[in-house]
């Protein structure tokens, strides 16, 4: 049977036959389905909330939360504060563990990534085994493991391990002296800031000298000397305006000082070393991806191994490392929602947990939690994209 000539088919068939219009039709149909599903969900929400007589409203945020949050390092929170304040405490706690976790995971990850490339067989294998063990066990178990170790193996406060009478280790956490800033410490801080600015200026100048004359200063040591020296001189000249608030056992617990609670400690450590293992592999891959010819060329120019790593290998490796690193940072931030398993009061535990329960506002509280994670993730992405652009190979 002969094919029907295209002009003889119906209009729709002809549109469908055209590749461009077909792709437009498919896109319109897909969008229509997506919006129809969305509309169905929203309609269902409205009807179901109506059926059980619930109203969609965020008014509960201004009512007293009535529950206590012990771990609130930034806000002076009491049970008389509002749900909104409780949410703020939770957000800050999430932020704290995310920032600390990202910092620790980066340092640990880069270190392990480089050790993994070590020619020392033992070091190489130890890191390898640790990486494989850690990466292949769910992060929740790591969190529970660290928490379990801290809580069950360390002694109770009355028999706490005493580190020279100033710091204590117990199953209620690590307690260290906290600094108390006295009169004059503001001047020391100002001197410190000035010293940092001076060190940065020196670094610029040293770089220019190097470009112009080839003379190399040991910038790192000189900067350290400027900052450390100036601050120390100011500190001593003002009669050491700093004292320490020592933790002491009063009644059931240690009071005063700086406290690292087991919940924070467990979440922070577990998230850090778990994420660090992924970062280590990314770093290793990034370094290995830099052609060995680059290193050989650097050696041929007479660069020492450290300089080679610093000037030739790492700048090229970073371009490969940064994009996957972003998703690890995002993972760490999102994994911090596992905090509730051990009772760390993050955003999920406060507004998405207790407030949800006490007010019965599932939709509203979950929308807040979703919004917070979305904003955090987008901020991290935006920052890392900016960083990625700044280290990108600049074509001239």
């Amino acid at each position, binding site marked *: 049977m002969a094919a029907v000539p295209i002009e003889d088919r119906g209009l729709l068939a002809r549109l469908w036959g055209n590749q461009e219009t077909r792709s437009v039709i498919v896109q319109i149909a897909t969008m229509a389905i997506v919006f129809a599903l969305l509309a169905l*969900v*929203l309609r*269902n*929400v409205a*009807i*179901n*909330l109506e*059926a*059980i*007589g*619930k109203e969609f409203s965020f008014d509960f945020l201004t009512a007293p939360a*009535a*529950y*206590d*949050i*012990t771990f609130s390092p930034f806000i002076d929170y*009491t*049970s*008389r504060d509002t749900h909104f304040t409780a949410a703020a405490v939770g957000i800050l706690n999430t932020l704290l563990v995310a920032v600390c976790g990202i910092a620790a995971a980066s340092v640990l990850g880069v270190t392990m990534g480089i050790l993994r490339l070590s020619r020392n067989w033992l070091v190489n294998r130890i890191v390898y085994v640790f990486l494989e063990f850690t990466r292949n066990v*769910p992060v*929740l178990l790591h969190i529970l493991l660290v928490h379990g170790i801290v*809580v*069950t193996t360390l002694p*109770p406060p009355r028999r706490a391990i005493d580190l020279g009478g100033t710091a204590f280790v117990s*199953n*209620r956490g690590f307690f260290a002296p906290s600094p108390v800033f006295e009169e004059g410490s503001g001047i020391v801080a100002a001197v410190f800031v000035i010293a940092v600015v001076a060190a940065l200026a020196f670094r610029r100048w040293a770089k220019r000298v190097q470009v112009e004359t080839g003379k190399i200063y040991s910038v790192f040591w000189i900067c350290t000397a400027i900052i450390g020296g100036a601050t120390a001189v100011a500190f001593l000249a003002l009669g050491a305006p700093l004292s320490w608030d020592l933790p002491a056992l*009063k*009644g*059931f*617990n240690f*009071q005063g000082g700086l406290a690292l609670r*087991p*919940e924070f400690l467990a979440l922070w450590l577990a998230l850090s070393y778990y994420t660090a293992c992924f970062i280590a592999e990314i770093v290793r891959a990034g370094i290995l991806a830099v052609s060995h010819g680059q290193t050989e060329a650097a050696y041929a120019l007479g660069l020492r191994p450290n300089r080679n790593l610093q000037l030739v290998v790492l700048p090229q490796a970073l371009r490969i490392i940064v994009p996957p690193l972003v998703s690890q940072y995002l993972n760490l931030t999102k994994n911090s*929602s*596992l905090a*509730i*398993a051990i*009772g760390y*009061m993050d955003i*999920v*535990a406060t507004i*998405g*947990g*207790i407030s*949800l*329960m*006490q*007010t*019965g506002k*599932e*939709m509203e509280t*979950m929308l807040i*939690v979703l919004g917070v994670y979305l904003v955090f993730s987008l901020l991290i992405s935006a920052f890392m994209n900016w960083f990625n652009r700044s280290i990108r190979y600049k074509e001239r």
Partner: protein
Amino acid sequence: MKATIHNALALTLMLALASVARAGTLEDVQARGVLNCVVSTGVAGFAYPDDAGEWHGFDVDFCRATAAAVLGDPKAIKAVTSTGKTRFTLLNAGEGDVLWRNTTITFSRDVGVKLRFHGVNYYDGQGFMVPKALGVSSAKELDGASVCIQTGTTTELNLADYFHSNGMKYEAVTIETNDEARQNYLAGRCDVYTTDASGLAATRSTFTNPDDHVVLPEIISKEPLGPATRHGDDQWSDIVTWVLNATVTAEEKGVTSANVDEMRSSSKDPEVLRLLGAEGNQGAELGLEADWAYNIIKSVGNYGEIFERNIGVNTPIGLARGLNALWTDGGLQYSPPFR
């Protein structure tokens, strides 16, 4: 729990996707042939699965009583486990037909969370448990202590109020389930475990050395525990209300699982005859069989039997009837008449 945020999201989604809540819970249950009860994840004596996965306990028996009334079969239940945090969402999303889960009746839950409560099956109050070795004899001495507490409960709020009003400070160690609280308490993460006094007794009974721990004398709150259902189904609400009342009335009238057959055929008391369906048509008015209450008593027993079997003085939990004695014995258990 990895599951936690996922759970919360899933629950939210459930609200979004669940078919529109309908009034006919009774028809749904009868068509399904199984009653879905929201229960706890495990509290000794109140709701716990045995080695074979079969659920037992005080709350579970009331769930079985409901199934016996509605389906004629106390075994036709499915336990929908819930943490303190997920229970109401599960109920409101239609995952459970009725909630029998040591749940305190409060204004905000009744009005704000939009639940219907149907009487009190256990009068409770919040207490504190501490290791004897601490040498504490009153809750007033707990200033500065670390307190283990289950999240999403009324106890969390009572605790904050109690310490606030007494000018004391504490470290709240927030835990999701009774089991985790137990582990943290025994490991010494906290000095005190606080929950309803019945829960403390139940938890203490599972310790290797229960005598090393003491429940402090202070009871800091009223915790009337009772069953709940969703708004919007009055017939179903009536059924749950009268299932509880039937067990209490049966105890008051001396009807037990042992003598229920005899009582039905030979009792002279018209209320007993009405209760057991030998007279009148109360079953039909509820939309149930005439022998609905007979089935409850025959298979599960009256209130006193349920109490003594699961949590009474002869069980490891060892709770006295106390406030939960019948009103005729100086307690608070009091059922409106079957008339």
